[in-house]
């Protein structure tokens, strides 16, 4: 199943590469690129700057996708019934509809990472960019992804880069609030409940503590660095 999705993704990325289209893989595959094999839904999520969307649309249509545009994203669909492949493309900004907070694709430099269970190389958001997109939404699945990412990459989160991106996206205040919310959830046991509810597993105390330390470090850095 996921092999099929990975192949589909590889085909799209190769076509984009040939045409020089800069596209980012976000969503479940974006998280998987950082080694987190968690539960996820079976679709592909991409983000592009608006100016390159016409070119990506041509690529997708050439591969048989039907495009359903919305304001801030496009759903590209191929096949039908249970064999349907869906690709969701964020145009210009990765937006959390609920909070209306959004992260502009143009401020994200991106990076390349390989999936651990295949040889496919994905253009993805940097760790800090990925964390920002997860923090602005902060739904239960985002909380689980954030805790998994922070506990696994605690020593790789760069606070300067995080707040630079936040400033470029005008998200400083929103992210400060989200970090405070996450800190409270980590301290009060709410994250343990969310973790159990989603995964059916216990959250290891060392993982919880590692995530909490990074959250506090990011908060402290904001406090020190801002007038």
């Amino acid at each position, binding site marked *: 199943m996921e092999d099929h*999705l990975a192949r589909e993704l590889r085909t799209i990325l190769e076509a984009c590469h040939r045409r020089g289209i800069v596209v980012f893989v976000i969503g479940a595959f974006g998280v998987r690129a950082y080694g987190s094999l968690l539960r996820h839904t079976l679709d592909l999520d991409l983000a592009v700057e608006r100016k390159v969307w016409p070119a990506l649309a041509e690529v997708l249509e050439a591969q048989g996708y039907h495009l359903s545009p919305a304001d801030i994203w496009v759903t590209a669909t191929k096949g039908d019934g249970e064999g349907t492949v869906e690709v969701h493309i964020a145009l210009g900004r990765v937006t959390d509809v609920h909070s209306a907070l959004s992260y502009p694709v143009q401020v994200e430099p991106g990076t390349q990472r390989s999936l651990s269970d295949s040889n496919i190389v994905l253009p993805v958001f940097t760790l800090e960019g990925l964390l920002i997109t997860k923090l602005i939404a902060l739904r239960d*699945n985002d909380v689980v992804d954030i805790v998994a990412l922070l506990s696994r990459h605690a020593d790789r989160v760069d606070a300067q880069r995080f707040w630079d991106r936040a400033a470029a996206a005008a998200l400083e205040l929103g992210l400060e609030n989200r970090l405070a919310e996450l800190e409270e959830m980590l301290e009060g046991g709410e994250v343990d*409940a969310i973790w159990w509810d989603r995964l059916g597993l216990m959250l290891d105390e060392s993982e919880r503590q590692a995530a909490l330390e990074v959250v506090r470090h990011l908060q402290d850095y904001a406090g020190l660095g801002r007038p």
Partner: protein
Amino acid sequence: MAVAHAYSPRRRLAWLARRLVNLDGPYLITGPQAAYEYHRWLTPLENLVTLQVHAEDVPVWRQVAGEGCLVFETLPTMAQVYAVQAAIVLNPTLEPKRYQRRRVVDGLAFVAPEDLCLDLVERARGETSLAEAAAILIAQRDSLAWDVVLDEAERRHLSHRLGALLEAINAETETDLMSLKVIEDLCHRANTDRLPPEEAAYPPGRHQSVPPTYQPIAERWGIRLTLPRYVISKVIFDLQPQWS
């Protein structure tokens, strides 16, 4: 939703099937593996299975361990699951009637979708359990034994919570996707069923306000339905090819 058809239990749980060959005691696959079997929506962790077994059979089921497979009798952590090729969690609460209702797929015994839905409604401590319950209700709505769902919901004092969930699905789809007759029947049963604590949020957790759209539903069923609307609307969006 994408390419779910290729993800059959025969392939997904081949490692488990090989281990069960020499054990013929009653068991049910529950948890995320069973949920995925019924909704084809949120994938399970591939190397983790929860087996519901009779309490007296636990010593027998410990024998499944070995060759990279670990058997847990308490909930493991992610690190413990990542460290092994396969992990089995034993849940020693299997009851005969539940076993009778099992579904057998590719030779593997799964908890019935009716029981699993109610398990998820009962255990919800966040957004995921109710999202998965909604996904199963939508995906299996034409094949569920609704009389069993109603009887078991009443027996387990879950009529109010299930009724609210069914109505929330209809509110989000703006259709009568969940049968009005079922909801009406559930409402009658809820009148005599024990009411959940009035002050308690459902699901318990960080969300404390009832979304305005759900306010009439919450009042009708006597519970504080604090589930954010995006939870069910995401399920509906993803499963749209199956119901629209």
